């Protein structure tokens, strides 16, 4: 399976990455070769193998349901690019609507 140039643009858009047009063929090639590696692995029979969810052979530890985090809003707001009235400010996002 190979990645087309429009696939590259779509992936870049989904990841919100700005890429140079001139780099697209190289990305397409790089991504395609990753998929080729996957294809090569897929030739192995894995019927009896449970998919790995994590490289460590361990399971999730749990914490008690207690409130342990104090309010640190002022600290966090101090490093935010924009904040007002206790809110973080971000550029407006408008959903596309047909209404």
């Amino acid at each position, binding site marked *: 399976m190979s990645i087309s140039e429009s696939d590259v643009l779509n992936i870049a858009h989904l990841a919100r990455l700005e890429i140079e047009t001139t780099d697209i063929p190289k990305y397409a090639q790089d991504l395609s070769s990753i998929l080729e590696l996957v294809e090569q692995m897929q030739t192995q029979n894995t019927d009896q193998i449970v998919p790995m*969810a994590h490289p460590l052979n361990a399971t999730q530890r749990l914490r008690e349901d207690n409130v342990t985090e104090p309010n640190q809003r002022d600290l966090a707001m101090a490093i935010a690019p924009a904040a007002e009235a206790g*809110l973080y*400010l971000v550029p407006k996002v408008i959903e596309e609507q047909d209404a």
Partner: protein
Amino acid sequence: MEWEVVIGLEVHAQLATQSKIFSGAATAYGAEPNTQACMIDLGLPGVLPVLNKDVVRMATKFGLSVGAKVSQRSVFARKNYFYPDLPKGYQISQYELPIVEGGQLEIQLDENTSKVIGITRAHLEEDAGKSLHEDFHGMTGIDLNRAGTPLLEIVSEPDMRSAKEAVAYLKALHSLVRYLGICDGNMQEGSFRCDANVSIRPKGQKEFGTRTETKNVNSFRFVERAINYEVDRQIDLLESGGKVMQETRLYDANKNQTRTMRSKEEANDYRYFPDPDLLPLEISSEYIEEVRKELPELPHEKRQRFQQQYALNAYDASVLVSSLDMADYFEAVVNTVGSGNKAAKLVANWVMGDLSAALNKDLLDISESPVKASQLAGLIKRIVDNTISGKIAKIIFETLWQEGGDTDSIIEKQGLKQITDTGAIEKIIDEVIASNPQQLEQYRSGKDKLFGFFVGQTMQATKGKANPQQVNELLKKKLDG
């Protein structure tokens, strides 16, 4: 053409924990913006999520209560999308291996019909924050207090065939999570939200039509309206030669319509993968059995018990157990009134009748009732021991509702005690008969219907206080004699 409606619901139930699903920040509703959003919720670099013990227990409880398989191994995955109220750029959810798989819930449609709705899965995930679109110099304000709040997303099978069935399912589910104590069910505060997947197909066709998903419908009434709107829209589209697009739509309660929110093709490309920050969740069968023992009496079990213990019919019992608060209220009244099954039926009638009507009229929940269980019990006691008639009881109930107080002092103050002294009633009846000679003659010449007239006159003369059975008996004797 005759169309069949196919509905599946996705419900987000906020789990009733003190702290977030992956952090120790508080989940209390209504706090000052961003005061309950810690470094983990903000998605700062270097932080690690740690799973809250109680969400696992709550999800397990839910799974057991709907007869589902509680997975002994489930995996958290990242659902990737960009939106400002999602600071990490992904939502931690469960995808391929959810904690609860398969299950079912029985819904009561009316007195004689019930239906079983399949539950596909239920998985744990974190909630996003909230965007405030008021103008902050052309920018959007973000409150991340809700980010990281634990949710159980409960996905139904496409088993519902009308908006009415969808509402019945939603109510049954709402009641269940309240019984289990895993969600406060507050729809106004967003603790229990619903997305509706709706499609239509020609009756008899096996394949599903293209569906739309209507987001965040936050009341039972709106769910019904939103689905009906969407069904009509899709029928109009197909009948005029158009096509239904698979898309996410938003319900606008003010306009009572749904509108396109985003087209699913792009937005749905979430690129799920197992979250490397979280290990697989494993729970033992011993743990599952331990949680099973903690399960409270469930709605269907309570219904059976009410039928047996209080000799109620199936319908009365199912209405009473439909909310835990109502069931508790009913039992509190019955226990105070005592004196057996006849009283239980009377209590059921009052709770489902006058009390529910008054609550509906004032848009109150039974937990907010101005007439408390002890007050209603005081009233019903006096009906049972014949101190007052049912008719007078309604007047006293009105007083209790408006002004509070207790039945005995209202009876005392307003002189409402039932007249059960045969001599006194006879005297009044004699007067009534004496002052209506014409009606008496007509009655005696065969106009039986006039019996009601005499009952009415007698009750009026006693201001409704005469014991109705005695009035009937004595009147019969006198009129016929």
